[in-house]
C-alpha cells in the first residue's frame, strides 16, 4: 500500500484537557450556575423548588422588562446613530502626520482612559445646576435643565455622556482605517477629477468598512450592556427613565434577590445580544458588496 496511514493515538485528547478545564471554570460553570438558578425557585438557601420554564415565561411577559428593553434598544441605536458619523468626522479631521497627529491622538484617547464610575461622577457634578459648569451654564441661559427631575433631560444626559466617552474609540478606529489607504487611491481619484465628497464616498468610506464594522459591534455590545455610568449619574431615574437592561437585572438579582427570574432574564439578555450581533455582523458583511442589478444605466 502506497497510502501512508496516519498514526492514531487517543491519548492526544489529554492535550486539550487544560483548555477544557480553563474554559469550564471561566465560562461553562458560571453559565451553568445561572442556568441552574433559572429553573428553580430559591426560597431560602436550604429550600429550593424546581419550576421548569416558569421563570422564563413569567419574565417574558414582564411589562417592566419590555420597557427596559425598549429603552435599551432606543439608547443603543441612538448611540450608534450619533457616535458613528461623529467618529468618522473626527477621524477625517485628525491630522495625518507630524507631532500634531501624535498630540491629537493622545488628547482624543484621554476620555477612553477614564474609569466608568469616574465618568459618571464627572457628569454628575458637571450637570449640577448649582456647581456644575453644564448645569449652571444652561441655567444661566434660561434652560430649565435637571437630570434628576426631568426624564428627557436624564436620558439625553446619559446619551451625551456616552457620546463624550466613546466617540473617540470610533474616531481612532476610523483613523486607523484612513491611514491604511494607499496614497495611490487619492492620487488616482485626483487624476479622475473626483470631488472631496466623491473621494469620501468611493474611496475613504469603502476602505474604512472593516474597522467601522468593528466599531459598530463594539459600541453596540458595550452600549447594550451599559451599567455603571447611568447608575452613578441617575441611579436609573427619574422613575425608570434611565433604567437600562443591566440595571434592571441588577435590581432583580441583587436588590430583590429574585435569583430565579434574574437568572432566566440574564440568559435571555445574553441571547438577545448574541442574536443582534449576529444580525448586525451579517448585514454589514453584505452591505455594499452585493452584485448591483440593472447594469450601468
Amino acid at each position: 500500500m502506497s497510502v501512508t496511514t496516519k498514526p492514531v493515538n487517543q491519548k492526544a485528547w489529554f492535550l486539550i484537557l487544560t483548555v477544557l478545564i480553563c474554559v469550564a471554570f471561566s465560562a461553562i460553570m458560571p453559565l451553568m450556575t445561572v442556568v441552574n438558578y433559572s429553573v428553580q425557585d430559591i426560597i431560602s438557601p436550604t429550600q429550593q423548588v424546581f419550576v421548569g420554564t416558569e421563570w422564563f415565561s413569567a419574565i417574558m411577559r414582564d411589562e417592566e422588562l419590555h420597557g427596559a428593553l425598549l429603552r435599551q434598544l432606543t439608547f443603543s441605536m441612538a448611540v450608534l446613530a450619533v457616535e458613528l458619523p461623529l467618529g468618522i468626522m473626527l477621524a477625517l479631521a485628525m491630522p495625518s502626520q507630524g507631532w500634531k497627529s501624535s498630540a491629537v491622538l493622545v488628547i482624543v484617547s484621554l476620555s477612553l482612559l477614564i474609569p466608568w464610575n469616574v465618568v459618571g461622577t464627572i457628569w454628575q457634578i458637571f450637570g449640577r445646576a448649582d456647581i456644575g459648569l453644564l448645569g449652571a451654564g444652561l441655567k444661566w441661559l434660561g434652560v430649565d435643565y435637571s437630570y434628576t427631575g426631568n426624564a428627557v433631560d436624564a436620558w439625553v444626559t446619559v446619551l451625551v455622556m456616552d457620546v463624550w466617552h466613546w466617540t473617540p474609540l470610533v474616531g481612532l478606529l476610523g483613523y486607523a482605517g484612513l491611514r491604511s489607504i494607499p496614497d495611490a487611491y487619492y492620487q488616482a481619484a485626483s487624476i479622475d477629477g473626483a470631488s472631496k465628497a466623491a473621494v469620501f464616498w468611493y474611496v475613504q468610506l469603502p476602505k474604512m468598512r472593516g474597522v467601522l464594522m468593528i466599531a459598530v459591534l463594539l459600541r453596540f455590545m458595550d452600549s447594550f450592556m451599559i451599567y455603571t455610568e447611568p447608575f452613578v449619574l441617575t441611579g436609573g431615574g427619574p422613575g425608570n427613565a434611565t433604567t437600562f437592561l443591566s440595571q434592571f437585572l441588577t435590581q432583580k438579582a441583587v436588590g430583590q434577590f429574585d435569583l430565579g427570574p434574574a437568572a432566566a432574564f440574564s440568559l435571555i439578555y445574553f441571547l438577545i445580544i448574541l442574536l443582534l450581533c449576529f444580525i448586525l455582523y451579517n448585514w454589514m458583511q453584505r452591505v455594499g458588496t452585493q452584485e448591483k442589478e440593472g447594469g450601468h444605466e
Partner: protein
Amino acid sequence: MARIDLDLAHAYNKNPQQDSDYALLPLKMTFEDGGAYALLGPSGCGKTTMLNIMSGLVTPSQGTVKYDGRDVTTLLPQERNIAQVFQFPVIYDTMTVAENLAFPLRNRKVPEDKIKKRVGEIAEMLEMSGQLNHRASGLAADAKQKISLGRGLVRPDVAAVLFDEPLTVIDPHLKWQLRRKLKQIHHELKLTLIYVTHDQVEALTFADQVVVMTRGRAVQVGSAADLFEQPSHTFVGHFIGSPGMNFLAGKVDAAGLHLSGVSFDLPAGRKLPKGEIKLGIRPEYVAVAEPGAPGALPMTANKILDVGTHLMLSASNANYALKARLPSDMSSLSPGDAVWLKVMGEHTCFYKNEEIVR
C-alpha cells in the same frame, strides 16, 4: 491632446545643496502631441517624479510645466486634464466595472449617453465588455489593472496618458498582450502616451521615443535604434542591451588609439580628442578575427554559453573583459582558448568623460 514642455528641476527636500539632493536635475524636454514615449531607467532615477510632475501630483521646486504653451505648473491634477495609471491597480471597490470606467467622465459632467458610448468602446478595446456589470472588487489583479488602464484611456480629450509601470502586477504572457493592446490603442485614439518602466524590452517595444534616465538626469532621448547604435552616454550603453555595451579604456595621441599594449590606427575620417578615452562596442558587433588582424585584441575565452540561437562568449586578458555574441557555428571554441576579437569597426563608439564623441 497637447504638446508637453518641461523646463524644471525638482528636489524633495527644501534646501538642495548638491546634485544628489535633486530628484530631477534641471532639464528641458518636450513631448510631442500624439507621440508614444517611454521613460526608462533604474529605480530611483527620477522617472516617476517626472511623471508625477507632468500630472500635477508633484509641483516642481523650480521651473515650469506647459501644455501647448499654457503654463499649468501650479494647477491641480483635477484641473489639468491629464490621465495617469499607477503601478498597482486602483479601483473603486463599491462600483461595477462600467461605473469605474465612467467615473472620470461622470466627475467631469459628461452627458450620460456619451459616457455610455465611450465606456462601451473602451471596454471593447480592453476585452472587458462581458464584465461591465460585475463588481470591480471581485476581479483578479490583472483585470483590475485593465480597469485602471481603461480609466486612463476613457477621456478622449486628455493632454496625455501617463503610465507608471502599469504592467508590474500582470502575468508575463498577458503583459505582452496588453502592451500590444496599448500600442494599438495609441494608433486608434491618437493619444499622447508616456510610459515609465525599468524594463528595456517594454520601453523599446512600446515607444517611438525612449528617454533614458539616471540619477535625476535624462541622458538620452531617441528611438530604439539610436539607443542601440549610438548610446550618447556610457550609462545608456550599459543599461540598454543584454548584455550591455563593452567599454575599454584607452588613450589617444598623435600616433593613434592605444588600448593597453595594443595600438590601433584611427578609423579613416574619425577625429578623436587627445587623452583618455573609452572605446565602446556592443557584444553583437564583436567578431572573432585572424590573429594579428587590424582592430583586434588578443584575449582568452573564459566562458561560452550556448543560448540556442547564438553563443555568448566571455573573454578577457590582463586589462580588459569583453562579452561577445557569436554565431552558433563557432562552437569549436572552448574555455582557455586564445582568441582575437575585433573591437574596431563602423559600430564602435568613443566616449570622453562618459559622453559620446561624435
